[in-house]
């Protein structure tokens, strides 16, 4: 029973009560992923599983056997920040930084969803073939990630900059 975390195979816990979040933080010491509310209300624990964003606090680790998890620690390549991470710095997309790892993982999943044409609650034409990332679209699609510092304007700017052009 194993899962893959940031490219490395990891043994799953024997106790099914262990959440994916606690596996990452407490057992693998990957503390980038944050525990905010631990009840699915804040998005700080967002990670990517096979490229799809989920919240890891309400995910039992055993449910993800054989899957590939990417956390914030897995975004940089060869010591170079992911372009979205660089954009968050350039646009002041944070203050305290606690929600940032979740924002980053969520935004990457979000950009992939928009690229493949998934509509959102604010999309006027449900049947459109492409879903351009406007400010309103980004705000709606990122509503599962709260920022108590109120850095949302910078966050939206950073995502527009790094993701709206169709980049990775």
């Amino acid at each position, binding site marked *: 029973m194993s899962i893959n975390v940031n490219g490395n195979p990891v043994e799953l816990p024997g106790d099914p009560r262990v959440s994916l979040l606690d596996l990452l933080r407490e057992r693998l010491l990957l503390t980038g992923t944050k525990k905010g509310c631990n009840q699915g209300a804040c998005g700080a624990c967002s990670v990517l599983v096979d490229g*799809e964003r989920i*919240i890891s606090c309400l995910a*039992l680790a055993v*449910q993800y056997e054989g899957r590939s998890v990417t956390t914030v620690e897995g975004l940089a390549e060869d010591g170079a920040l992911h372009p979205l991470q660089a954009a968050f710095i350039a646009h002041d997309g944070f203050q305290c930084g606690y929600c940032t790892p979740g924002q980053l993982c*969520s935004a990457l999943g979000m950009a992939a*969803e928009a690229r493949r044409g998934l*509509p959102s609650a604010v999309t006027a034409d*449900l049947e459109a073939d492409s879903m351009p990332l406007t400010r309103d679209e980004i705000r709606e699609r990122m*509503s599962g990630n709260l920022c108590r510092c109120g850095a949302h304007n910078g966050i939206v700017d950073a995502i527009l900059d790094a993701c709206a052009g169709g980049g990775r």
Partner: protein
Amino acid sequence: MIPFTYTRAHDAAEAIRLGADAATKYLGGGTNLVDLMREGAERPGALVDVTGLPGAIEESQDGSLRIGAAVRNTAVAEHRAVRARYPMLARAILAGASAQIRNMATVGGNILQRTRCAYFYDGTVRCNKRTPGAGCDAIDGFNRMHAILGASAYCVATHPSDMCVALAALDALVELEGPGGRRTIPLTDLHRLPGDRPDLDTVLGPGELITAVVLPPLPWAQRSTYRKVRDRASYAFALVSVAAALDLAEDGTVRDVRLALGGVAHKPWRAERAEQMLRGRPAGTESFRAAADAELAGAAPLRDNAFKPELARRLITAVLGELMGDAA
């Protein structure tokens, strides 16, 4: 969280064999059940993971759509046939929870999610849903989010699903399989009103599993939508929501209409009285408002949610007006 065993089922028969025990619960995406287990509101001794059960979204010859219970909420809202033929369903799903949660949550789990009444979650207060016979602290408590239709002296909780409001309006059928065999029931018959047993959310028997949801053909549901009013613009439960479809005749009368409300009752509330009043009547604000008045005539608001009946009336009137579009 109390200890439990975890098993993954590969098909419905295996799940039902493993899930026949009363202390066993079926597990979908976990976005509600795991939370409830952490809070002690659910205490199963065993979980049977049903997310691996086969089942996709299949279009039938007769124009109906069959959606496997393990299909994720995102996949339903994304499906081309859902977006084109049942827009109210795509919009209802996209109005619910967050994108992360929709990626995890299954169709079966969405239907069987439990109320978000804070008194149900809180083990230090009285709740008849959590402990039958204990009493209800919500009735005289903070009850802004609570029910105005079909509630009882035992429970004023609401069903939190957006998806189910659209399913109720669309006459969706729910396929069930259990130790006693298979049966299919209308979604509107699945959830119960609280009565004196609010601990029972649904009519499901022990070990019974939702295997699929079927949307019957309804060509005029192309003209349908879902509108949700909440305390913030996104990622919040409904104060009131409306799923509606409108079929207008050439002469401007209502040939047919579908209407269901969320955020107002212990179950997704199909507004049959309003629908009945509207069929054959001239479409327009006056008749929409009269139908809404009739539907809400029996509303019994609580201390903090007296705004809901009028909000529901305005929402019904506005959404039907929107669906009239250029004919208005």
